[in-house]
């Protein structure tokens, strides 16, 4: 007794693509972000002492002050993320290229922040699609950065057209290797990937510490750092200083597209999704679940490794300790927000990248700590994870089918 309206039967690829994405309830995601921002504003207001002072004057003054504080904070966040429109206008009017670049820099810097999020988010999303919870993206990022930076400084004499792909590939291979181990352990012994990937993270952190102090250390530096990568390995920047925007962003978009093709257009992707949604049916259909599990972890590791390589080849140009500020962990939230769909990952990576970049200048201009972004991310994620809250607040109808955000086969018992 399923009530369905008849719909047109012929659909093109884009329609299927969109259906796949919107089935995961676009409205709820949008409202989750919206509600998160509102609550974040309330939080900013109640933690600002001036608001309390204003309340001492009168109730309405207090409310007004609270409102203004939230608006100012988000205003600063927004200008930090996309630039100040007045400044941009003035810069274009003056015609000075350096001024223009400075004015539009925030927007491109946000894209720079977005790039590793896309890679790492794809890694976690791919894992989710196959029913694997890859918490090891952070460790895979470190290993990818290590192998990428090594290829960047240790292989001389290559033209950029070869050196860059080689270095990116090295990064991917490093991460893939780090994903392969938990994948193999899961397939052969049943060891849960959540545990093993967390362990692999610690190994990666300490391993990279040791390499940076020893074998890979730049002898001319006092603090542990690797040598600078060769110019031939640097991901080309599209604008002059101070804009750091580099082609890594487009590589990330390309990877998102490739992951989409893999998952939804190939027989391999069909197998991966079958393993992810129903292991029993996958076995029934003759799929080797063991090998697909390993392959999925290798691919996920490779994508996270590219996030690390992207950072050292495109932004830092060398590897320093603790270079990744939790991209791998944020990307778990990000993949959930993007409903494990490549397009969703790109969109949520943009959100996270802009938030993070905007928050940095927000901290400088209005003094609200950057941690507000973590709170915002946490709030949004909480609402995504518990859509019932959003449905209740906005009195949305309950969907006909239970929505399965992520099905983790190993946790179903």
């Amino acid at each position, binding site marked *: *007794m*399923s*009530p*369905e*309206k*008849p*719909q*047109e*039967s012929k*659909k093109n*690829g884009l329609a*299927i693509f969109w*259906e796949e994405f919107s089935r995961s309830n676009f409205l709820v995601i949008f409202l989750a972000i919206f509600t998160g921002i509102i609550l974040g504003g309330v939080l900013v207001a109640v933690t600002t002492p001036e608001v309390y002072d204003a309340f001492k004057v009168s109730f309405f003054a207090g409310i007004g002050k609270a409102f203004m504080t939230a608006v100012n904070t988000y205003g600063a966040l927004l200008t930090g993320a996309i630039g100040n429109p007045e400044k941009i206008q003035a810069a274009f009017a003056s015609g000075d290229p350096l001024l223009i670049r400075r004015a539009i820099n925030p927007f491109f810097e946000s894209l720079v922040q977005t790039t590793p999020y896309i890679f790492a988010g794809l890694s976690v999303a791919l894992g989710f699609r196959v029913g694997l919870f890859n918490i090891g993206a952070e460790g895979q990022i470190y290993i990818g950065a290590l192998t990428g930076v090594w290829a960047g400084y240790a292989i001389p004499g290559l033209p950029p057209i070869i050196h860059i792909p080689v270095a990116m590939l090295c990064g991917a291979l490093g991460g893939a290797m780090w994903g392969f181990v938990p994948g193999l352990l899961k397939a052969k012994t049943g060891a849960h990937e959540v545990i093993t990937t967390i362990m692999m993270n610690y190994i990666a952190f300490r391993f990279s510490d040791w390499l940076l102090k020893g074998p890979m250390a730049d002898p001319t530096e006092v603090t542990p750092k690797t040598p600078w990568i060769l110019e031939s390995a640097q991901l080309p920047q599209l604008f002059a200083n101070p804009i750091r925007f580099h082609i890594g962003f487009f590589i990330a978009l390309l990877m998102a597209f490739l992951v989409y093709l893999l998952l939804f*257009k*190939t*027989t*391999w*992707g*069909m197998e991966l*999704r*079958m393993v992810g*949604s*129903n292991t*029993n*049916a*996958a*076995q*029934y*259909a*003759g*799929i*080797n679940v063991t090998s697909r599990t390993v392959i999925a972890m290798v691919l996920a590791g490779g994508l996270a490794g590219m996030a690390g390589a992207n950072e050292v080849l495109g932004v830092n140009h060398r590897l320093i300790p603790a270079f990744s500020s939790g991209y791998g962990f944020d990307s778990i939230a990000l993949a959930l927000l993007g409903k494990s769909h490549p397009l969703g990952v790109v969109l949520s990576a943009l959100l996270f990248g802009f938030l993070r970049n905007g928050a940095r200048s927000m901290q400088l201009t209005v003094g609200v700590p950057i941690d507000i972004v973590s709170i915002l991310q946490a709030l949004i994620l909480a609402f995504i994870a518990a859509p019932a809250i959003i449905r209740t607040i906005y009195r949305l*109808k309950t969907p*006909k*089918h239970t929505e*399965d955000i992520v*099905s983790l086969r190993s946790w179903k018992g």
Partner: protein
Amino acid sequence: MAPVLELRGITKRFPGVLANDHIDLTVEKGEIHALLGENGAGKTTLMNILYGLYHPDEGDILVNGIKANIKSPIDAIKAGVGMVHQHFMLVPVFTVTENVMLGEEFTKYGGVLDRSLAAKKVQEISDKYNLNIDPNAYIKDMPVGLQQRVEIIKLLFREANILIMDEPTAVLTPQEVTELFKIMQTLIDQGKSIIFITHKLGEVLECANKITVIRGGKVVGSTDPKTASMNDLANMMVGREVKLEVDKAPQKIGDTVLEVQDLKVLDPRGGIAIDSINFEVKAGEVLGIAGVQGNGQTELVRSLTGLLTPIDGTVTLNGQDITHSNPRQITELGTAHIPEDRQKDGLVLSLPISDNLVLNTYYLKPYSKGIWLDQKVIIETGENLVKSFDIRTPSVFTTASSLSGGNQQKIIVAREFSRPIKLLIASQPTRGLDVGSIEYIHKRLLEKRDEGCAVLLVSTELDEVMQLSDRIAVLYRGKIIAIVDGKTATKEQLGLLMAGITGETEKMSL
């Protein structure tokens, strides 16, 4: 005197669907009232309303003539309404008493569980209704039939007067069913009332005092079991002429297709599930495997389809040894498999119907070119199969999860039957399906037999096995204890064999 339960004009709407349309139902004290209807007819919704799981949009529930406001199962129990679910809600490692008192614990000294008092009450109930239950036995050691009685005790312990029994016979042997009917008789003799939900027509006629048939959310009629016939009831349920008897063409037996020799298979816990069995299935015949659930059927089918590796013995398919082949190899040799649990094994519920229709052929031409899936061909194939197998769905893009059980099963049948096959292994092919779908699946199954396909039918529905099979093998505790001719076998004979009793029946070898 007011009837013990009266439902007046119960209406429940779900988005786009009228699940219950002004349903009236009256249950008298001391009666077994059968509620008959196909899946999706609305009987579950109605019972969930009565049990407080749903709230009706319109209508009243009257208990003993007084309007009852049932908002949750707790209210239902307070009003004296209890439900024996199809899937038992028991804790296997607890004793009968512990299970019964769970949620309604007797305590002494201000908080210490009083097991002995509860056990005494359980014993009293057991004696009063002839249930024959030891209050201190552990659930895990009890056969299914006894576990069901524990569920009944749970309700009686809470002083339920109206017992809703949801498909209570589905898991029982014919002998256990007879026992259950006796117990139900005792219960009503003592003044309880029973609402008996089922789609098995024979049982209704055997035990009910009154029958109400529901179709499409409406009551289509009430009859007296003394005057109604099976065919009348089936027609009322489905709303058209239904053929209950299956027409079977004469057999055209061919060569041996599947041969099983000394097969030994372990269950997941390491116990022996299949113990050195031998049988063969020839082209153009249906070999039925009868037996009570849990006697090795699952492991047998899994080992024949490559999902489980046997520890000993050989399986040959058309002369080829497939004992250690994987599922894909076995499928490619021309085996079709209708798995016993369609949602667990046979479908990926979150994928669209079109993908489910190529679940084990997606990698072959024309569905893919190299590594690329050809969505166009997959969708076209899906649309054709939806049409030719009459799968009721708005489109092939709908996920399999949103279809009814019957239509889900049709997806599997469409997928498995639409490629050339030599062997069909059908495990519980009609479990949980309504009369219309059962009729359809049976017809398709026999079509395959007549086309010269070897069919292995594994079913716990004795009627189904008897109707379809040319030969019947009875599986008991992992062994085939007899293979009998399908034409001459009787229900009593098979029932005894299913219970492991071979004494009175000489073993026939064909």
